[in-house]
């Protein structure tokens, strides 16, 4: 459970990047972007972020049933906090 706040912060970190890049993209595409394209762009951005976060997020959860130990999970958390500067 110690890793729960890190999950939240990592999600927020990625969402900020995603939202900013989507906005930039849509403004480059012009005024009249078809709804279908807007949805495709939104799906693209979520697809990349979610698939990239999947591994780290999974390794922040330690349900006791698998081989992932608590200490390894905590080490993952410390590394993610460092690498994404999540403590501040």
């Amino acid at each position, binding site marked *: *459970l110690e890793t*729960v*706040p890190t*999950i*939240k912060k990592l*999600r*927020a970190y990625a969402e900020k990047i995603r939202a900013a890049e989507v906005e930039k993209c849509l403004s480059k595409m012009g005024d009249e972007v078809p709804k279908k394209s807007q949805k495709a762009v939104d*799906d693209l951005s*979520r*697809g990349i972020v*979610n*698939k990239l*976060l*999947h591994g780290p*997020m*999974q390794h922040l*959860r330690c*349900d006791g049933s698998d081989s992932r130990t608590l200490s390894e999970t905590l080490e993952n958390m410390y590394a993610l906090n460092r690498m994404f500067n999540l403590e501040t």
Partner: protein
Amino acid sequence: ERKQDLISRLKNGKNFLRNQDLEKAFLEFKTAFELAQKLEDPIEEKKAARGLGASLQRQGKFRDAVKYHSIVLEISQREGEESGNTEAYGAIADCYTELGDLERAAKYYDQYIARLQSD
């Protein structure tokens, strides 16, 4: 017509949200939510519910936010169509984390994580 009104309410809501004008955002999404219900448009109904959840969450009203994010999950179940669920699970978990209920947050994050690889 009403569908057009619905679309523009959602768009306004998003813009207010972006500009941190949270109460105005809430009102736009609220109107959009009611319109979507009348029009029986579950996809837009979910977008409105998500917007309502996000508006409340950013105001620190986490319990109320959970209610609206949960409506997204209910609509998905009712319609047999899962769009928006990954984000809803994540947002509910974020709210429980803020409320200090890490146990419940973890359960919702597990649902969120289980869906990260799907489309």
